């Protein structure tokens, strides 16, 4: 069971252009599908609403963490905060990081979402997996089952 999601995409546009698409709140909203209230500011909450038809009632809430010019943009959010009636502020958030890198073709973007291991007791489960052969085998079975039966 992985505690993170990692993605890599090569974009035929300059690092500056990708940086703008990520950090300008209007541009971010365009491709992400969210109408944000205002600009991203490190340390501050970013709010808005999903723009996809049928999901406009869903609020977007994230806390901007770091904005290192044309290098790194990160925020934390609650990966399962989808019920408008529930307060998720007490739950551990995950960290979403975008790292930009110049390449001859344009820009390489690395995305990482981490912190899924903060789900209660997951660490202990992980530690346990290391120690117990039988459990490791079961986890592999689970993984292959899930992959083969999407």
């Amino acid at each position: 069971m992985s505690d993170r999601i990692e993605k890599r995409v090569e974009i035929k546009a300059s690092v500056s252009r990708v940086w703008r698409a990520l950090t300008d709140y209007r541009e971010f909203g365009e491709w992400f599908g969210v109408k944000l209230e205002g600009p991203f500011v490190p340390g501050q909450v970013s709010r808005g609403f999903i723009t996809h038809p049928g999901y406009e009632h869903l609020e977007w809430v994230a806390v901007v963490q770091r904005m290192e010019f044309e290098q790194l943009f990160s925020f934390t959010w609650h990966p399962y905060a989808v019920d408008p009636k529930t307060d998720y502020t007490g739950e551990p958030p995950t960290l979403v990081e975008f790292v930009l890198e110049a390449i001859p073709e344009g820009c390489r973007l690395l995305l990482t979402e981490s912190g899924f291991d903060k789900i209660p007791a997951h660490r202990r489960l992980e530690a346990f997996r290391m120690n117990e052969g039988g459990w490791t085998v079961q986890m592999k079975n689970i993984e292959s089952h899930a992959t083969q039966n999407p």
Partner: protein
Amino acid sequence: MPLRTHNPTHASLQTQAPVFAALGDETRLVLVARLAQGIPCSLSQLTEGSHLTRQAIAKHLRVLQKVGIIHSLRSGRESLFRFDPKPLERVTEQLELWSDQWDQALSRLKAFVETEVRE
């Protein structure tokens, strides 16, 4: 589609919290590890070799049953307990779903930026 909004199972990781909470106990982890080997066991078999009483083991088994990690089945006069990987499977599926949604979001970003460059 926007991230995290199009699948009815998107709230399921939240519902997985009790699963992990149930596993957050040494005794229960040992019980799960034993049953995860695939052979259903009776309460007596599970109590054997443990310093805990039958009642204590039964109580831990009930916690695991409540979140669906184990199920009991009747075999003659006694109940056997067997492991069910599904609750843990769902956590893995959830991560894969979110992984796919990031793929979609990043391809929208790519299209958004690259299309504009060409215009």
